[in-house]
Every structure is written in C-alpha cells, then in structure tokens.
C-alpha cells in the first residue's frame, strides 16, 4: 500500500490529514487506539509545519506519504520551509510535575513514544521527517 496527500500550510487542512490517516487505518484494519494515536502523531507534526515552517500568509505545500511494506507503516512528511529538526528538541520530562515544566513540548515527545522510529533529514532544501510504526 502506498498513498500520498498534498496539503497547504493552513490549520483547516488538518481535517484532510485526519481523513487520510483514517482511510489508511480502515484499509489496514487498525484498531481504534492505534488509529487515534496515528491521528495524533500526524496532527502534531503537520501542525508544527503549518505554524512554523513558512512565513505567515504565504500558501505553501506540505506532503505526506504513507507506505505499508507488510511489516512497518512508514510515514514521510516533507516541506520546503526553513530547516527544522523536531527530533532535536529536548523531550518533556514526565517525571516532573507539569506545573513546574515549561508549557508545551509534549507533541514530539508523544510522537517519539507512539512511533518505533522517528528520523529527520534535510535534503535538497527540504525537511524530511520519517516516522515508522511496526504493525
């Protein structure tokens, strides 16, 4: 299975990403929890790009591909915005009371927890984020 979707850097487009992930979930017969978790992962990473990758007000493209090879479901998210490695961000520490933690920083932490492998590359002016989940 291989699927792809191209969206614009607008918050409303998250709804299409959601549908895209749901179609994949149905096709692969994923359970409700994994379905929700994958939706969460894609929303976190795509919204990061929507908010931070491009100058405000300029419509730009974001691409997401999903491929299942019989063992792993692999998502690749790409944009040609400014260089940004979300995996380099320091993880939120769940052993510290959220009251005492910096606000936020939980998105990428959730993504790393849900997926088996998350890697970032800067290639030919693009940010490429590869996220793998063993099924």
């Amino acid at each position, binding site marked *: 299975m291989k699927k792809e979707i191209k969206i614009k850097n607008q*918050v*409303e487009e*998250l*709804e299409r990403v959601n549908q895209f992930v749901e179609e994949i979930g149905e096709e692969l017969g994923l359970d*409700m*929890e994994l379905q*929700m*978790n994958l*939706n*969460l992962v894609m*929303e*976190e990473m795509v*919204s990061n790009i929507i908010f931070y990758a491009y100058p405000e007000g300029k419509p730009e493209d974001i691409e997401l591909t999903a491929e299942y090879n019989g063992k792993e479901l692999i998502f690749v998210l790409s944009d040609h915005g400014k260089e940004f490695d979300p995996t380099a961000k320091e993880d*939120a*520490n*769940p*052993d*510290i*009371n*959220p*009251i005492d*933690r910096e*606000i*936020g920083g*939980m*998105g990428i*932490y*959730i993504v790393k*927890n849900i997926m088996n492998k998350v890697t970032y590359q800067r290639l030919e002016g693009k940010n490429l984020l590869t996220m793998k989940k063993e099924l």
Partner: protein
Amino acid sequence: MTQILKEGGKTIIKTGERIDTMNANQFEEDIQPALKDGGVDLEMDCTDLVYMASSGLRIIQKTMRTVMQLKGQFKIVNVSPEIYKVLAMTGFTKFMKVEQKKA
C-alpha cells in the same frame, strides 16, 4: 461544545468530542469563566471526549497552574482508556487526579 456547569460547590467543565489544534483556542476561552474564583473545585468531565492533541494537554497544564495559584482543586474524570494512556505518557496522571471512564 464545551459546557460549564455548577454542581454544589463544584465547577464542572464538560468537554466536547475533540480538543485539537483547530479548536484548542476556543476551548481555552470557553473555560476561562471557570477559572476566576479562589478555592475553585474544578472537575473536567471527559465523558464525550474521544480525541485530544497536545494543544489540549497544554491547556490542562496551564489550568493546573492557575488552579494552584487560586489554591483550588482540579481533577479529570471519565477519561477513555486511550486518552488516559496519553495523559500517563506525558506525566499528568502522576501529578493530578485522573479517573478513567467506567466500562
């Protein structure tokens, strides 16, 4: 649709189905009236909640701080098992009262 209900001395925030990137700001605005009183006894009722993104967790984090400053109490109830796991993963269940939905 978020609802704010008063029940005895308690203030209940009844969430809608989703707290996500698209509606998180609205949710944050909706709950502000519940965060005005000192000593507030706040309960976030997640009976209808099926999905929450980190934008929702961020609001919970901020609400914890506000309630602490107000010297109040804050707990989350009727959470689905899937959302409970996300709250556990991010360290919330360790530091505040979170009750799962009864099966």
